[in-house]
C-alpha cells in the first residue's frame, strides 16, 4: 500500500518542475536566477577587471573593448562592478528569504491553527506590523545602528515574513474549513498529520509565490537603501550604490546609468516571473487549460458527443 503513494509523490514532484519549465515565464525566471547566482559565484574568483581599480585615463569610456559596458567617472569597469555587485544582491535575497520563511511560517501557523485568543492576537499583531513598510523598518534600525547590509537583510526578512504570514494565514484558515480537511479529521488524522498532508500542500503555492516575490523585494530594497546610503557600505560593490554614484552624471552620461538599472530589473523580473510560474504550476485552478470559458489553444474542435 505504501509503495504507490511514494511513487505518485515522486511523480507529482517531477511534474511540478516540468510544468514550471514548460511555462515561458518559469523558464525565464529559472534562467535569470541561475545566471545571477552563477555570476555571483564566478565573480568571487574572476571579473574582467578588478572592480575597485581606478584608472583615470579611461574614465567614462563608452561600451566597447576591453570595457564591454564602459567605465564610470573614476575609470572603473562597469561590467566588473556589476558582477561583483551581484554577490551583494544574492546575499541579501537569500538572507532575507531565509528570515522571511522562518518568521512567515511561524506567524501564519500561530495565527491560523492555535486557540482563538492566541490566533486573533497574532493576527492583530501581524496587521499592525504590516503597517511598517520594509524601508521604514530599515530606516528605523539604521537611525540607531547606522546602515549596513545586515540591517537590510533583517528588515526585509522581518517585513516580508510578516507579509507572508498575512497572506498565508487566511489561506490556512480557508483550507482549514475545506471538506477534505474535515474528511481528513473525520478519518482519524491528527491535527499535525492533517497539517502536513492537507494544509501545507494547499497553502504551499501561495507561500512559495510570496517568497519568490519577497526575494524580489529584497533586491529592490537593497538597491533603494544602498542608493539612500543606508545599505551597502561604500567599499562594497552594490548595484544601488552604483546607481547613486552615477546619478549626478546622468544628464551627461545617461548610458552608464542604464546598466545597473537593467541588472536590478532583470533580477527582480526573474524572481517575480519565477513566483508567477510556480503559482501557475502548482495551483490547478490557475492553469491555462482549466479556464472553463476559455478554450485552450490547439484544442480539439470537434468534441465527440460521448466521451468514454
Amino acid at each position, binding site marked *: 500500500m505504501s509503495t504507490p503513494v511514494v511513487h505518485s509523490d515522486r511523480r507529482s514532484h517531477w511534474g511540478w518542475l516540468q510544468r514550471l519549465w514548460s511555462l515561458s515565464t518559469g523558464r525565464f525566471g529559472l534562467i535569470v536566477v541561475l545566471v545571477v547566482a552563477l555570476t555571483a559565484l564566478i565573480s568571487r574568483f574572476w571579473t574582467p577587471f578588478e572592480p575597485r581599480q581606478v584608472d583615470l585615463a579611461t574614465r567614462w569610456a563608452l561600451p566597447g573593448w576591453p570595457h564591454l559596458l564602459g567605465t564610470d567617472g573614476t575609470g572603473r569597469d562597469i561590467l566588473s562592478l556589476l558582477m561583483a555587485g551581484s554577490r551583494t544582491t544574492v546575499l541579501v535575497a537569500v538572507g532575507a528569504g531565509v528570515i522571511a520563511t522562518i518568521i512567515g511560517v511561524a506567524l501564519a501557523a500561530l495565527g491560523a491553527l492555535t486557540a482563538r485568543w492566541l490566533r486573533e492576537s497574532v493576527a492583530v499583531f501581524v496587521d499592525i506590523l504590516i*503597517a511598517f513598510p520594509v524601508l521604514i523598518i530599515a530606516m528605523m534600525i539604521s537611525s540607531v545602528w547606522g546602515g549596513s547590509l545586515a540591517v537590510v537583510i533583517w528588515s526585509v526578512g522581518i517585513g516580508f515574513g510578516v507579509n507572508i504570514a498575512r497572506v498565508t494565514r487566511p489561506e490556512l484558515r480557508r483550507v482549514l474549513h475545506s471538506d477534505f480537511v474535515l474528511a481528513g479529521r473525520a478519518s482519524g488524522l491528527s491535527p499535525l498529520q492533517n497539517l502536513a498532508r492537507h494544509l501545507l500542500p494547499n497553502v504551499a503555492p501561495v507561500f512559495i509565490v510570496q517568497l519568490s516575490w519577497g526575494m524580489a523585494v529584497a533586491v529592490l530594497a537593497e538597491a533603494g537603501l544602498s542608493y539612500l546610503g543606508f545599505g551597502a557600505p561604500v567599499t562594497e560593490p552594490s548595484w544601488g550604490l552604483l546607481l547613486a554614484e552615477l546619478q549626478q552624471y546622468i544628464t551627461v552620461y545617461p548610458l552608464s546609468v542604464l546598466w545597473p538599472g537593467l541588472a536590478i530589473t532583470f533580477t527582480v523580473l526573474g524572481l*517575480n516571473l519565477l513566483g508567477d510560474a510556480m503559482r501557475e504550476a502548482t495551483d490547478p485552478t490557475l492553469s491555462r487549460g482549466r479556464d472553463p470559458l476559455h478554450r485552450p489553444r490547439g484544442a480539439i474542435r470537434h468534441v465527440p458527443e460521448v466521451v468514454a
Partner: protein
Amino acid sequence: MTRYTLTRLALLLLGLLVSSVLIFLTLRVLPGDIAQLIAGTNSTPEQVEAIRERLGLNQPLPVQYLDWIAGVFRGDLGSSLLTGSSVTSELAEKAQVTVPLGIMSLTIALLFSLPFGVISAMRRGHGGGTALSVGAQALAAVPVVWAGMMLVVVFAVWLGWLPAQGFPRAGWNDPAAAFRSLLRPALTIGIVEGAMLMRFVRSATMQAVGQDYVRTAAAKGLTRNAALIRHGLPNVGLSVVTVLGLQVAGIIVGAVVIEQLFSLPGIGRMLVDDVSARDLPKVQGELLVLTGFVLVIGFVVDLVHRIIDPRQREAT
C-alpha cells in the same frame, strides 16, 4: 455594522499603541545610551549628562513614553536635537509636498492599472493581452529610483521638458509650477506602483474567470466577457480595495526614494536626512506619523470593504 466598526476602531487604537511602543523601544532602549550616541565619542561626561537632562532620559522609561504620547495628543511631536525646531510644524510644511505627491501617484496608478489589468486578463493568450502583461511585469520589476532617472533622461535631456529637480520656493502659491514639479515624481511612482497593481488586477480577474458564478452566468446565456464584466469585475474591485492599504504603504516608500532623487522637500526626504543625522526624536515623530497613517488607511479600507461586500456583512 456598528459593532464591527467599534471592534475595528479598538483594533486601530491598539495598533497605534503597539506601534508607538515599538518605535519608542527601538529608538530609546536598543541603542543603549542614547545620550552618549548623540554626544559622540569625543564628548565629556558633563556634555552627556546635559543631553540626558535635556531629553528627560534620567527619568524611568514609562514616564518618558507617557511624556512623549501626552505630547503627541497635544499635537507636539517633539523637537529636533540639532536645530530645536518643532517636528509637528516641519511635518505640516513637508506634507504640502508629500500628500499631493501621494494622491497624484495613486491616481495615476489606479488610472492605468484597472483597465489594463482587466484587459490583459481577458485577452490572455492573445497578442495584446500578452504584451500588456509582459509590460506590467517588466515595469513592476523596475527600481523606482531608476525609473525616475530614466524619466529624467527622457524628459529633461532629450525632450527638454519640465524642470529636472526641486520644488518652487513659492510652494502652492504658484500652483502651476508646484504641480509641474510634482508631475514627474508622481508619474514615476504611479507607473511603478500601477504596474504592481496591474499584476494584481490581472490575477484577480483571472481568478474570477474560473469561478462558478461566472460559468453559471455564461451557461445562462451571457457571453464570456459580459459574464466577467457583470459578475467578475465587482469581485475584482473588492480585491483591489483590500490591497489599497498596501499600495499606500508602497507609495510612501516610493516617495522616500523619489523625493531624494528629485530633491523635493517632502516628508520622505526629511526622514532620510534625519536618519542620516541620527536626529532620533525627529525620526521617532516621523515614524509614528507614517505608521499611524498607514494604520488609519488600513482601518478605512477595511470599513469600506465591509460596506461594499455583501458576503462580508453576512459573515458576522
